[in-house]
């Protein structure tokens, strides 16, 4: 039982990071119908920026919490600028091109960012400083630490905040309008370019926070960390229904749970025939089954229709 509980905790923590990153994919897809494959690298850049800023500030003996706060803001600002630039350079000129073209530039941007990060921060793994006393708590035999609790609660708060932005604010209304029909929105006086830029910046800010969460939780940062995370988060977005905000959240948490329960129990269920080496196979099998029965994902509508 305590093992089961532990796997649920593992899954929820991992899943809330997936959900935050998945939101970035899904917002862009909802509005542009474009898969921004460079999003995973934005997560990585966020973590790297925070790491650099922390290293400098702690070196100047700034109090840890102040340093952390400043680094979060810096990472978010940096990623927002990056998100804006990516959209401006790689996607806007191709907005009316065939759909495959921006997909290729997305992959190109991803490779460029990865290599840039490798040149700036080097090839080695950086250990991420531990800033708060990370006490562990026992929960019915299972273990959870402060950072994991913060990750989970912060992710839920951010998701709630994002829902409020999309459904309650002027910007949110403009986003939904652009998602529904770009031309009609333009005729109604919505500045499409501004809305799309802001969407990219919003998604990138979430990515920066996710990057910081991953680095703080696992105590490492590396130029390659965004690739696998991005792929998983994209899967989560598809699982929940790409283009749908609630879908991304549900998909993220679900993928986290499927992975941890799959890795933990697949061996026991199949009597050792399949082991944890089938962890990813298992996750993708669930994805395939969901897509067969619900081709547009679990909550499959696009952003706009979910007003």
């Amino acid at each position, binding site marked *: 039982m305590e093992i089961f509980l532990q796997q649920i905790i593992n899954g929820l923590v991992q899943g809330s990071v997936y959900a935050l990153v998945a939101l970035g994919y899904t917002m862009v897809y909802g509005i542009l119908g474009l898969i921004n494959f460079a999003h995973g690298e934005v997560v990585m850049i966020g973590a790297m920026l925070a790491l650099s800023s922390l290293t400098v500030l702690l070196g100047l003996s700034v109090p840890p919490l102040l340093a952390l706060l400043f680094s979060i803001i810096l990472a978010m600002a940096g990623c927002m600028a990056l998100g804006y630039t990516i959209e401006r350079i790689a996607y806007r000129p191709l907005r009316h091109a065939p759909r495959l073209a921006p997909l290729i530039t997305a992959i190109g941007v991803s490779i460029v960012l990865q290599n840039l990060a490798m040149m700036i921060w080097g090839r080695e793994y950086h250990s991420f400083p531990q800033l708060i006393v990370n006490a562990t708590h026992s929960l019915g035999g299972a273990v959870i630490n402060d950072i994991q609790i913060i990750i989970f609660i912060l992710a839920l708060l951010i998701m709630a905040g994002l829902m409020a932005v999309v459904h309650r604010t002027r910007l949110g209304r403009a986003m939904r309008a652009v998602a529904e029909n770009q031309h009609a929105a333009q005729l109604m006086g919505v500045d499409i370019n501004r809305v799309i830029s802001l969407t990219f910046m919003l998604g990138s800010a979430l990515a920066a926070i996710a990057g910081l969460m991953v680095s703080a939780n696992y105590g490492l940062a590396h130029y*390659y960390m965004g690739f696998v995370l991005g792929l998983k988060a994209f899967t989560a977005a598809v699982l929940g229904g790409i283009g749908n905000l609630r879908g991304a959240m549900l998909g993220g948490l679900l993928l986290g749970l499927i992975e941890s329960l799959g890795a933990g129990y697949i061996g026991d269920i199949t009597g050792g025939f399949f082991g944890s080496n089938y962890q990813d196979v298992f996750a993708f099998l669930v994805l395939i089954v969901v897509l067969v029965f619900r081709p547009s994902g679990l909550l499959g509508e696009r952003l706009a229709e979910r007003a």
Partner: protein
Amino acid sequence: MTLHFIRPLLFAAVSVVLLGCGKSATTEKSTSGELVVRIGASAPLTGPQAHIGKDNESGTRMAIEDANAKGILIGGRKVRFELISEDDQADPKTATIVAQKLVDNKVSGVIGHLNSGTTIPASRIYNDNGIVQISPSATAVSYTAQGFKTAFRVMANDAQQGRVLGEYAAKNLGAKKIAVIDDQTGYGQGLADEFIKSAKANGAQIVAHEFTTDKAYDFTAVLTAVKGKQPDLLFYAGMDPQAGPMAKQLRALGLKLRFMMGDGGYTPQFIKLAGEEAAEGSYASLPGVPLDKMPGGKQFEARFVAKYQPIQLYAPYCYDAVNVMIAAMQKADSVEPAKYQPVLAGISHDGVTAKIQFDEKGDLKGGAITLYQVQQGKWHPLETLGAAIPAAH
């Protein structure tokens, strides 16, 4: 759907980049009358293991620069060695592309690859083209068991290493219930299998065999599954980018057990990533004797650190691999692989890491294995074992 065509796309893009930056294969004669000899080298220079790959490249480069400074004569002509270093991304598919590229560049020999998973598929291409390959670090048994005359290594194999580790875990550390995690690469699988065989033979019980990948960073799920089986020792067969976070996470999950790794975990990076607290007491092995007991170890380290950075892992072995290859070329008075290969097979060379002699398969003769433990945040040698063990099979 989308996922399935992204991979080939990335792969194609990478291939284009790799092919695009190739130098044209010109003749080996330069105008000044000196003989230009190309030595190929391959290791992951990007991706999670890039820091170890760069270490390999630096070790290789240093040996080549040393040889050029010496002004070696072969066939009466002054030789200038030229390093062609390629990135195999620790990926078996990319490794074969890179191997073909090195062959097309008319290299006289290859130092590499770093991982067993890349060395084995690449070795077929080198063998088909008659090019001598010396791997500084591939330890999988099957690499030299393919019957290729061109395949050599300057490090003990996993049969030797796994056997020593399994015996040490079960006998010296008295582990009764052992859990194993491997990273599903050619190296991880091979080492895990040999370890399990040996631990069982020495009376331990394998209570769990779990898996991860060489790109993962979250191990909480498999570690929780391991925790349920209550082992007293966990053996990880893989490299330090995974081993470090794994050690950290297993302490965070409250697992109280001994943590043991093969050579892939014996790096300063492991301690950095795990954190000194979580790394404390971990065991790892490395084929060969400790650096300060190597014939030229201290001196090599001082020169290497001055020129590049602290040694990660295999740099001394790369240095030796190049030197033993050049020694064979000098002795044969030829840079033709067909001519110097038989000389290399019978050579006896005093390297930095050990006295290098090969057995009939191309394995290092009498490879010793040293066990290390993290004590007060540093790797300390415990004991050197297995020097007299004959090669397996």
